[in-house]
């Protein structure tokens, strides 16, 4: 396609289709509606299905059904819609359903400022359903990254049989940027491992807790079982505490054991820096400018921007924190990912949040001023 002027929402749709997504269901909500539109415009022409459901609960319900029938599914909403997805997200976790969920964040709570950006759903996305088991959360900073991480999210959802969130922001979703998607290098496509045709199918079978069970489509070569209830490796109701715990350990281990490998981060370290800025999403672009300006003033500053928010890229954070005296965490919320940073930072390190949710971007100047980099 060459050089294009694209909004982040279109880039997400294009990344999904590039990853062979063939089923989409969604419900209109600003600022994610144009993902629904782009999928409706593109999927049916290539033999896929894109539908507008009656509400968010039906959107994700359609997707879970289609995913278990073998489709590669995407749904997209904004924060209020994630509230309505919540129970079904738990179902996708317990049923080990591969699916990609986009949250184009808008300022909240509740209806909030529907047409304005925010990053208020960071911890919400991680803890969005009962049970507290892990999900994967990726956060792009640019339109190009929205495309790349959308594709990547499909690979991860297929590989780990887990819902993967693409956590973006109105400020990326509805901002157009000059971008050449063809110039973005993408890894090889990953499809879920399917159970051997001639073997008895056990829908949730694993040997090691972190192993991902082979999949068989509803309507495919085996008789498949799927249940919202606590079950064993065969998909039958389980009440034996030992079996119950074994399954829970498995849901946690398959994501957590891969944390280092899943850690997508961008490092811009400066030798001898005593300050580190940790950021993600659109705000990491303000951080980039702040770092540039601070260095121009002769200050020594490092930056770590995160594309993977969950599982927390612990090793990357710990090694970045090593040796600094101050960490600045700018966020378009009242302080959410800073909690993950504080957990890992030694007590002697000062951790400063630069926070606002007044619907405007955090500016480089605000990071410099409030972070004490004058």
């Amino acid at each position: 396609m060459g050089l294009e002027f694209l909004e982040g929402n279109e880039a997400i749709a294009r990344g999904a289709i590039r990853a062979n997504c063939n089923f989409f269901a969604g419900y209109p909500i600003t600022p994610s509606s144009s993902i629904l539109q782009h999928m409706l415009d593109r999927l049916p022409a290539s033999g896929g299905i894109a539908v507008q459901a009656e509400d968010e609960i039906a959107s994700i319900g359609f997707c879970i059904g289609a995913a278990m029938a073998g489709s590669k599914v995407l749904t997209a909403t904004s924060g209020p819609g994630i509230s309505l997805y919540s129970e079904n997200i738990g179902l996708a976790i317990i049923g080990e359903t591969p699916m990609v969920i986009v949250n184009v964040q808008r300022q909240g709570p509740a209806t909030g400022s529907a047409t304005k950006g925010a990053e208020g759903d960071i911890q919400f996305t991680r803890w969005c359903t009962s049970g507290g088991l892990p999900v994967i959360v990726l956060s792009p900073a640019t339109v190009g990254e929205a495309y790349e991480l959308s594709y990547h999210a499909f690979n991860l959802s297929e590989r780990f049989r887990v819902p993967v969130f693409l956590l973006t922001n109105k400020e990326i979703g509805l901002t157009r940027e000059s971008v050449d998607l063809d110039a973005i290098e993408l890894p090889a496509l990953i499809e879920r491992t399917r159970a051997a045709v001639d073997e008895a199918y056990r829908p949730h079978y694993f040997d090691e807790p972190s192993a991902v069970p082979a999949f068989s489509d509803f309507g495919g070569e085996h008789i498949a079982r799927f249940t919202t209830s606590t079950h064993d490796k065969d998909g039958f109701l389980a009440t034996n505490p030992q079996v119950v715990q074994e399954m829970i350990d498995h849901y946690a281990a398959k994501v957590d054991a891969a944390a280092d490998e899943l850690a997508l981060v961008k490092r811009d370290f400066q030798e001898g820096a005593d300050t580190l800025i940790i950021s993600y999403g659109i705000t990491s672009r303000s951080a980039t400018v702040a770092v540039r300006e601070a260095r121009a003033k002769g200050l020594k500053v490092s930056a770590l921007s995160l594309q993977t928010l969950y599982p927390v890229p612990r090793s990357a954070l710990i090694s970045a924190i090593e040796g600094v005296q101050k960490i600045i965490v700018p966020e378009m919320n009242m302080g959410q990912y800073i909690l993950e940073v504080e957990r890992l930072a030694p007590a002697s390190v000062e951790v400063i949040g630069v926070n606002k949710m007044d619907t405007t971007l955090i500016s480089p100047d605000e990071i410099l001023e409030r972070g004490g980099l004058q």
Partner: protein
Amino acid sequence: MNAVAETFLTDEIGPLPFCPGCGHDRLVKALDKALVELQPDPKKVVIVTDIGCIGLADRYFVTHAFHGLHGRSITYACGLKLARPELTVIVLKGDGGCGIGGAHLLNVARRNIGITLIVANNFNYGMTGGQHSVTTPTDGLTTTTPLGNIEGAMDLCATSIAAGAPWAYRGTGFDRDLGERIADAIRQPGFAMLDIWDMCTAYYLPRNQLKKKDLTGMMERLGLQAGLLADKPRPEYGEQYRQIHAQATQAARPRPEISAKYDHAIDRQIGIVVAGSAGQKIRSAAALFAQAGMFANLEATQKDDYPITVMTGHSVTEIILSPERIDYTAIDSPDYFVVVSGEGLQKSRARIEKLDTSATLYAEESLDLPETNARIVRLPLVATAKKINRLSIGVVALGAMLADSGLFPMDAFNESISTLQRKAIGEVNLQALEAGAAMLRQECV
């Protein structure tokens, strides 16, 4: 090789789990009878359930078993059916599920997705302690209506039919032909639903001293009919979906390519704000300008601000152009500000007041501008656009701004319009561009 299956039930996990005398037992066996009659490949059948006693049933069949959230079984069934139209998808749900999932019942009926819904209707929540449901008859005694139900009972068939269900049947678990009627439903290409009344022996039966024959009596008292209540086939959703998309004209016109072939005169990030009104095509003019910048080898971003009622009020667009990657996408100190209407001015007044001396403000001449340190260029934008096309005001203004600022060659804007726009609109905008540029060249002379 394909022996006739005598049952689709399995005893692999033991006998059916229902209370003695529970109607669900009869219903599950009637469904089995229907499957035996139809003899489908079990690998092509999915039984979908949700929460409620009947939700225990799916796993006792040799077919695929899908047990989902309370009230949501219809949504999974629709996803399965849309993804794999060759599947026979049968939903077993209770009256409770029809309450919490009422919206899905209405919408599957309205869309006519080819699944079969069997409601095991026993007028209360058997799984959670006998609370009243949407189908509990008025005066019915339940744990949550101890003085008698004062709510009206929902007529599931009439509700579904009103929403568009082409096939609906009401009966009881005691009907001798229930298996056949379920088979009839499964044969329907579209959505088919059966409202099957039965006994909850744990709660509803003892509290209401209900007897087997009373079910028909209850129907009469409530003024409800039994039997086949709708049989008006119409096209199934998934089939229609595939048909209309197969017929649809192939993909939209390919997106024209932008090639960075012109030079520019920009050495830093430049912020441009264009403020106008809804309906003035401000956003599309700005997009053409930004892409003109891309033709001139610049990076570009565009952000739009407008009320959700898109046909009224302001339309303010921010464009950033830069020779390098654009990081921060807000414009704190605009370099160029273009105001074409009163609504645009109203929305931007505070920002205009704060413009500094290095900024230039291009404004429609009739506007009453606030005090500002910016260089002001007043232009007859409305009058000029009016001569060409009212909707070209954004291009007129940006043409003037480009002529004055010399950020990049006019040819790049020209090429952006002629490459990216359809011919008829493009020609209007090329005229507008020329008029805008000429107007300011004259001003400057």
